[in-house]
């Protein structure tokens, strides 16, 4: 039974990191149109999350955790909008390096992984309940 409790903890850690992943994706999607205020300034830069394996010293378990949230160093886009306050002398405004298609696919992946961890929790919980049920008769 302690192994199943450990399994619950591991799956919960998996759900936590996927939740953080969704948070970063939501941030990217919300800022997909965040242009700069003045010419020469940079717009919103896309953020990327990565995971790492950590040893939880209290329980002796290998858990997944957030490694870091780093900026995506790819190039910004450009849009011709001479009336924009941040337009350069040629009339172009820098746009964020956020691609909604990539974010949507990433969101789908996070959702899928979250569901897998949830399914693992449900199975572990059912196994615990089956064991406890042995006491009933």
């Amino acid at each position, binding site marked *: *039974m302690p*192994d*199943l409790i*450990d*399994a*619950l903890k*591991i*799956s919960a*850690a*998996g759900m936590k*990191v*996927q939740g953080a*992943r969704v948070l970063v994706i939501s941030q990217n999607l919300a800022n997909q149109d965040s242009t700069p205020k003045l010419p020469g300034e940079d717009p919103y830069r896309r953020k990327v999350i*990565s*995971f*790492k*394996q950590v*040893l939880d*010293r*209290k*329980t*002796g*378990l*290998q*858990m*997944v955790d957030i490694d870091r949230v780093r900026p995506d160093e790819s190039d910004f886009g450009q849009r011709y909008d001479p009336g924009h306050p941040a337009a350069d002398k040629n009339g172009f405004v820098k746009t964020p390096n956020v691609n909604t298609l990539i974010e949507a696919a990433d969101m789908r*992946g*996070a959702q*899928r*992984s979250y569901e*897998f*961890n949830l*399914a*693992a*929790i449900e*199975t*572990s919980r*059912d*196994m615990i309940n*089956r*064991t406890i*049920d*042995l006491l009933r*008769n």
Partner: protein
Amino acid sequence: MFFNDIPLIRGLGTQMHWLNERQKLVARNLSMADMPGATAVDLKPLTFEQMVRGKSTKQLPALTTDPRHQKAFIDPNDSADTTKEKNFAKSPNGNSIDSEQQLFNMNQTAAIYNTAVNVYRKNIAMLRTAIGKAA
């Protein structure tokens, strides 16, 4: 008479312990399904001899005698009881965990566990009948 002296009960207990350990590894694999460089690990199959002897794993964690002691850590990537799953499909970040395979393993584990619990329950019911205390 102790329950563990009955070979069937002892065997079922060993198998249930093995399945608990396996479920822990499946949960670990699923939680690391998006981690760069992660590889899936699984327990080596439980042999009949292990079941009869009542030992589901070779490597046992050190006993902690005080709640302030740190728990012993057995690395599933490098243990006598585990194997690394081979998967030809690897994502660009080096992750080779196949989530579908893990779901299959999880359902298989749950099904065998349910069977073991039911056999255990029936065996106890039979013992109760034998001593005239049937429900």
